[in-house]
């Protein structure tokens, strides 16, 4: 097992776990946790490929991760702000209670 494949396995596991959290968790904040996991899985892949992949003098992988981190931070801030707004209105972060969109 090479370091690359090790990291890839970990990242795919992370991704799956994140997806699982997104699908099954009912607390909106924890869904965000799942999303963060998925994002980090992707980041991990980038770093792994940068480090152990073909030569990359342009730092494409770290660059991508850097941007991804920045955007993920933004996403987390906005996501949490939205959740807090929703919480203020409904006094709940349970997604199943937020079904006012139902038909």
């Amino acid at each position, binding site marked *: 097992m090479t370091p690359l494949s090790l990291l890839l*396995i970990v990242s795919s596991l992370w991704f799956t776990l994140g997806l699982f959290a997104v699908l*099954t968790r009912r607390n909106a904040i924890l869904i965000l946790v799942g999303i963060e996991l998925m994002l980090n899985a992707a980041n991990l892949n980038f770093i792994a490929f940068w480090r152990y992949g073909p030569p990359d003098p342009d730092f494409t992988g770290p660059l991508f991760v850097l941007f991804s*981190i920045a955007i993920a931070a933004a996403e987390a801030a906005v996501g949490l*702000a939205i959740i807090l707004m929703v919480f203020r209105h409904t006094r709940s972060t349970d997604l199943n209670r937020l079904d006012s969109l139902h038909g």
Partner: protein
Amino acid sequence: MTPLLILCPMMILAALGAVWLARPVHAALFLALALALTAVVYLAVGADFIGLVQFMVYVGAVAVLIVFSLLITRPGDEAEELLRRPRSWVTGLACTLPVFAVLVYAASRHTCLPDAAPENPSLSVESFGRVLFTTHAPAVLAVGVLLTAVMIGAALFAKEAHASSHTEPTRKPNTPGDS
């Protein structure tokens, strides 16, 4: 390789904890742990800068934000969560397992890469910064705009909250006998 071999199981365990623990705060703290471990992995593979940034942003900001919002929202007891666990299992696994299968399949295909490829050198901050601010300057600008927008947006949310929930206490001069 050695640090990775130590770190990877820890990462998987931390992720599992983040996904599986019923108490939201615990899950969040495990997330923080998982992210911190990721940072350590980055450091270990030589991406120092990215690792520190990862630590600063994810552990210092995102995880803190998450626990903070948990503090504010005080999610309910985990008993209910534990009750509905078995039901959610099925659908969750039904969706995620194929994904996992595909990912593992894809990961296993990395053999197409030349095995003998030399490892890339560790990240030099200066050249990284040079690339970042020359070739990718537009992207940096775009991210800057995005972050500004997010900051303003968050401030607006906060402002609204301020207006609706918080009224500044007005000071009144003390009345006699009040001292």
